């Protein structure tokens, strides 16, 4: 069929059409799977969201009722606030950290592979395992508080009495710090790839013109990393808005302490697997999709597309 289309257009020769056909044939299976399980499930989820839908299927058509319930649910409002708060803070931190690590690693010649692997390790390690370790480190009787005591700071004098993960004022910020660290390695890799594509002649010319390292970074490196900025920011924002596992492990499914760890995806998980309200959970998923899609469009507006070819 693809062959017929290309022949019909007349702009492609038979050879190119056959090549295109072969290309489409190669991606046909993954494309069909993608259409069914990603795009198809998106539309199916939108359909389910209009129903009261239980474990065994639909029980009643409710129209936009599920969306009305979401809009009135204070816990969901808290989940949105928490997710946005987390995203607004964690994205700049992990992007800045990733960029700093990339620039540093890019300038190291001896042991570059070691440092690159070291910085990237937290990103590929199991987030559950790292979170469990983090809980031990940050517990009231943990390593972090012991280190504070070593430098003369008594954690008990803090508002949270050293209970970083159990107190509503510090739980989310602690998780935020953890994730900024673990995710920065991935950001570093994105930036490193783009950094290595910047020709050295540009820097040599800048040096001849008297530019120092700081000026070279802001006038050359940073602007030429624009395609990477878009990619990094988009993936960071999407990942941050979908934060689930760390909140689930640190705060348990209920979002405690005082819903400070209730994120949008944790709320969705609860609606699905603790309340078994699949219609309602689907409407939460659609709202989450709209929020992420809007955030991505806004970023695209400000940072353009990931036009790697143009950068080169």
């Amino acid at each position, binding site marked *: 069929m693809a062959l017929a289309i290309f022949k019909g257009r007349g702009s492609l020769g038979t050879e190119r059409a056959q090549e295109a056909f072969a290309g489409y044939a190669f991606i046909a299976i993954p494309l069909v799977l993608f259409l069914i399980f990603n795009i198809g499930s998106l539309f199916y989820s939108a359909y389910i969201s209009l129903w*009261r839908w*239980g*474990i*065994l*299927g639909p029980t*009643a058509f409710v129209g936009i009722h599920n969306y009305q319930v979401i809009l009135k649910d204070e*816990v969901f409002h808290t989940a949105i606030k928490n997710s946005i708060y987390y995203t607004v803070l964690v994205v700049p931190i992990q992007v800045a950290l990733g960029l700093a690590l990339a620039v540093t690693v890019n300038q190291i010649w001896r042991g570059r592979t070691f440092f690159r692997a070291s910085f990237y390790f937290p990103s590929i390690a199991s987030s559950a395992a790292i979170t469990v370790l983090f*809980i031990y480190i940050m*517990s*009231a*009787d*943990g390593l972090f*508080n012991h280190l504070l005591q070593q430098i003369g700071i008594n954690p008990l004098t803090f508002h949270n*009495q050293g*209970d970083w*993960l*159990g*107190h*509503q*004022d510090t739980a989310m910020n602690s998780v935020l710090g953890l994730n900024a660290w673990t995710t920065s390695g991935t950001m570093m890799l994105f930036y490193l790839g783009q950094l290595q594509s910047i020709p050295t002649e540009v820097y040599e010319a800048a040096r001849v013109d008297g530019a120092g390292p700081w000026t070279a970074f802001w006038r050359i490196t940073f602007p030429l990393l624009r395609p990477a900025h878009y990619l990094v920011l988009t993936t960071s924002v999407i990942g941050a808005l979908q934060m689930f596992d760390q909140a689930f492990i640190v705060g348990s*499914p*209920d*979002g*405690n*302490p*005082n*819903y400070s760890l209730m994120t949008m995806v944790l709320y969705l998980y*609860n609606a699905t*697997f*603790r*309340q*078994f*309200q699949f219609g309602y959970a689907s409407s939460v998923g659609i709202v989450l999709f709209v929020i992420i899609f809007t955030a991505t469009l806004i970023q695209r507006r400000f940072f353009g597309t990931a036009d790697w070819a143009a950068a080169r």
Partner: protein
Amino acid sequence: MRKWLLLAASAVVALTACGGGGGGGGNFDATKVSGTVVLSGWQASPEEGQALQAAISGFQTKYPNVKVDYQPISGDYPTSMVAKFSAHQPPDVFYVDSGVAPDWIQQGVLQPLDDWASSRGFDTTQFYPGYLNAFKGTDGKTYGYPKDGNTLAMAYNTDMLTAAGVQPPTTYDEMTSVGAAMKAKGQIAYSLSPSLDRILAFIYGDGGALLSADKKSDAIGQPGFKEALTFYLNLFKQGYAKTPSQLGVDWNGKALGEKKAAIIFEGGWLDSYMKGTFPNVNYKWVEMPKGSAGKSTLGFTVSYSIGKDSPHKDAAWLLLTYLTGKDGMTLWTQGGVANPSRKDVPAPAGKDVLVSSASFAHPWSFIPGFSKVNDAFNNAFTAALQGSGSVDDIISKTKAALDQQLSAP
């Protein structure tokens, strides 16, 4: 002649409906049942697996024509089961936690058992009501029989209390005085969970409740609820208690083992932990302290239930009733990993308090959608504990969440 033919045909239809795929029971003959039954559940420890294998072996000896295919589920059990229910391919017999039972009953994925129990002669009166009632739906039908049960009781570090010169408290007032005495000696008396699955035992003790007896309206405004809540919160405010998180541990058992607190309120799961992790810490079980309304505790249990879509219901019934019957439960609880939910099964050594407390236990099982109520309470309690809420806030938020679930269609 035609009339006789019609009668004969009706009889054949009726008999067909009663047999095979799982109808009723007047003609049920256990010796003629055969096939393979899939049994699923989670497995907390290798010891639990061994105890269950012992019970399954007992079943195979009694019913050699029925094979048991044991398929434990690792990972997130409710998630796995939901997928199986949705595909209409549940295991024949499986665990159902009392906390999730109302939801699964409402969703229609469990088989009601009452008709079979009466027609096939299975005696359910030996189950402690605090456990059996956890698996009753709003229609009054029973959707599972408790395979075992655990109650909350008070575990205290004998050495710490002796050193402080105090006796284990038997009433809420004594809890306060013991807390004060230990605080005077620079010790924390209680490690307390800031969660409904512990606090509710104290609420019942003061005569309060979450729900009316028929589970159709909330009972939060009745006397006892606010009093118990205030008492529990004050234990923290007066410095007599801390949460596990404040003590730098992940649960109360560890606080007892590390001697960060002298008294905790937990269930039988503590014993294997203490034996394995803190074998040299001396502790004892006693009943929960009495409130103004008398003795109370919570009963946590798990049932064996049969899937509505199970293709082997007769064989599943045999396995279910064997495992929750006297013989099967005796084999299961002899493994030392569980306490009986039946009065006619003896308590394992050292578990007397936990077993006898079942006689005054309230089931940890409420209404569909209860997890939202539980979450509302827990988060409001934590807020109050950390100074951004009050007892009235806890009550109003819990009541709002409860009323929302009660009015849900």
